[in-house]
């Protein structure tokens, strides 16, 4: 007879695993990767490669020589962080800065806390914000998107503003929204990705496609995204309703900047967001409000990254304050 195994119940296990979830996210990112390569060409390829390789390298070396634990690079989380970091920078980001960003992402924001699952803040976002604050020039000069087959794909020196940046700047000069909107790429382009911005955030459509995949595979739940998008839509909608000359159409907010990327791939990072459904609602709504506040009244044209990071800080309190409904908490009337 074989040696019997003893363990506590249950003795069977569902068939999902951390690895499957992480690689699921990577698959979900593929449409956006393709769009970014289409619009930003080799620059995007370089950024993606440098970032993910650097992230995996730092994960491997820190786990091996500093934490001295079993290798963890295979679990896929470093790859996810790497791709998402790349998604958060412009295509012309110098590699050395990107490597610093990868170091911050993995070494400071993730491994210092003990690696996967322990970090209270979203590593890729910490990396992004770190770079944004440290290298504002490089982080805010956006190459103009130009379709891969449009001819001037490789002469990517032309830079242009992001729609949100343009909006904020022009509003600052006292122009009105309808005037400014004349210069915008238009909703269809914004949806498809033909706009200035970080390589991963430009195409709302590709991101939604990926999100659908994750929803179907039950990697993410719909609560946070719905709460987040809903809040942004309602909040900006109210403002737009009050003064359409000063405040832009809510749809514009949904398809520009990093909102879709943030909503579907970062506000859903389970490690750094609340565990209960109730908590997810609060998280999403809070992030939505902060995003709008920063976008409209803050110093930065884009607020998604900051909003999520700030809500990450609130997550433990949310987890503490918004418990799932306990069975028997309130006796239902029969």
């Amino acid at each position, binding site marked *: 007879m074989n040696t*019997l*195994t*003893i*363990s*506590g119940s249950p003795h069977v296990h569902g068939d999902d695993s951390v690895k499957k979830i992480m690689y699921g996210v990577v698959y979900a990112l593929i449409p956006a990767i393709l769009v970014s390569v289409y619009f930003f060409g080799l620059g995007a390829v370089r950024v993606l490669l440098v970032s993910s390789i650097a992230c995996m390298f730092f994960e491997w070396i820190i786990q091996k020589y500093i934490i001295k634990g079993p290798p963890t690079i295979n679990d896929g989380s470093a790859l996810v962080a790497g791709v998402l970091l790349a998604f958060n920078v412009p295509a012309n980001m110098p590699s050395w800065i990107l490597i610093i960003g990868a170091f911050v992402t993995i070494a400071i924001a993730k491994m210092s806390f003990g690696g996967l699952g322990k970090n209270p803040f979203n590593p890729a976002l910490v990396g992004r914000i770190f770079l944004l604050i440290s290298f504002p020039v490089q982080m805010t000069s956006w190459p103009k998107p130009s379709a891969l087959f449009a001819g001037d794909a490789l002469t990517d020196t032309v830079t242009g503003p992001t729609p949100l940046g343009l909006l904020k700047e022009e509003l600052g000069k006292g122009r009105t929204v309808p005037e400014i909107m004349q210069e915008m790429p238009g909703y269809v382009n914004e949806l498809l990705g033909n706009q200035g911005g970080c390589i991963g955030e430009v195409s709302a459509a590709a991101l939604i496609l990926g999100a659908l995949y994750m929803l179907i595979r039950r990697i993410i739940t719909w609560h946070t995204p719905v709460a987040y998008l809903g809040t942004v839509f309602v909040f900006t909608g109210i403002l737009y309703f009050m003064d359409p000359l000063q405040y832009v159409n809510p749809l514009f907010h949904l398809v520009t900047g990093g909102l879709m990327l943030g909503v579907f791939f970062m506000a859903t990072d389970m490690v750094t967001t609340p565990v209960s459904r109730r908590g997810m609602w609060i998280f999403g709504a809070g992030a939505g409000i902060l995003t709008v506040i920063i976008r409209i009244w803050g110093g930065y044209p884009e607020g998604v990254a900051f909003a999520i990071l700030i809500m990450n800080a609130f997550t433990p309190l949310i987890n503490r304050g918004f418990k799932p409904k306990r069975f028997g908490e309130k006796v239902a009337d029969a």
Partner: protein
Amino acid sequence: MNDVLIFSVISLSAIGIVAAIVLYGVAQKFKVIEDPRIDEVEDALPAANCGGCGFAGCRNFAEALVDSATQHENIDDFFCPVGGTDTMNAVAEILGLSVEEKDPQIAVVRCNGSRQNAPQKIVYDGPATCAFAHNLFAGESGCPYGCLGLGDCVAACDFDAIHMNAETGLPEVNDKCVACGACVKACPRDIIELRPKGKKDRRIFVSCINEEKGGPARKNCKVACIGCGKCVKVCPFDAITLENNLAYIDPEKCKLCRKCVPVCPTDAIHEVNFPPRKPKPEKKEDGEKRGQPAQKKEAAEKQEAGKKNEAGKKNEAGKKNEAGESDKTNNE
């Protein structure tokens, strides 16, 4: 003297005096009766109110100290980073906690069911905590009394004094042990006991707590105490008692004569830090069931040799292990 000087002197002194008088008045009027030791302790603290101790200010800390001293008679969990050890000693003195020296004790692990002596029959697949495994099942060797080898005791020790021996799968205590008893409390099977360190660091104890009858006990572990009572008979000082099929040596009565050690048919009695023994030719026939006295003696010798090599420094369990191994090859 210029104006500035005069104004300074007047205003500042005024502020100072007003503050002093008001404070004094308020203090008198709103006096609250408290444990006077709190004040004493507070006085002994640096009054930096830095929060470094994790409390909201020195007074709060003092209250916690007095409280802990009253309730648990120790203040080991507290530390003031500004004042350091001196301050803490001073506080301990105020609170009357200067512990009088007891007979130095040490933790001993009363199980020798190493991987070799008590081979694994079952694989445990779960969290590495003895507390849980103990609730779940009898143990990988099947011995329901034996060490589970998952190291709750190791985790409990703050003094780096107890470690797992990877080879035997048993914990070993080293001389850093301060007999705090944390491991004793942590072990769900009550395997660890605090015993007097003994003269010259020598001690003799039964390294087993199995209360099963001989047969079942031996089925799981070669070095289990089978409750045969031979040691009880041979002990000239009445130091050994037998209860529930298990011998226990009272450290107070034991004079470390070592007579019991060789008579034990299963090698369950341990001697620690003794010089090697001269081979005794007249050893009594033992082991009704085993009937292999010669091998037994050989094992005992080996064990002693092992002890010598390790200069009596290492832990009991580790040494015993070698004996166990030779046993195994002979036995099965």
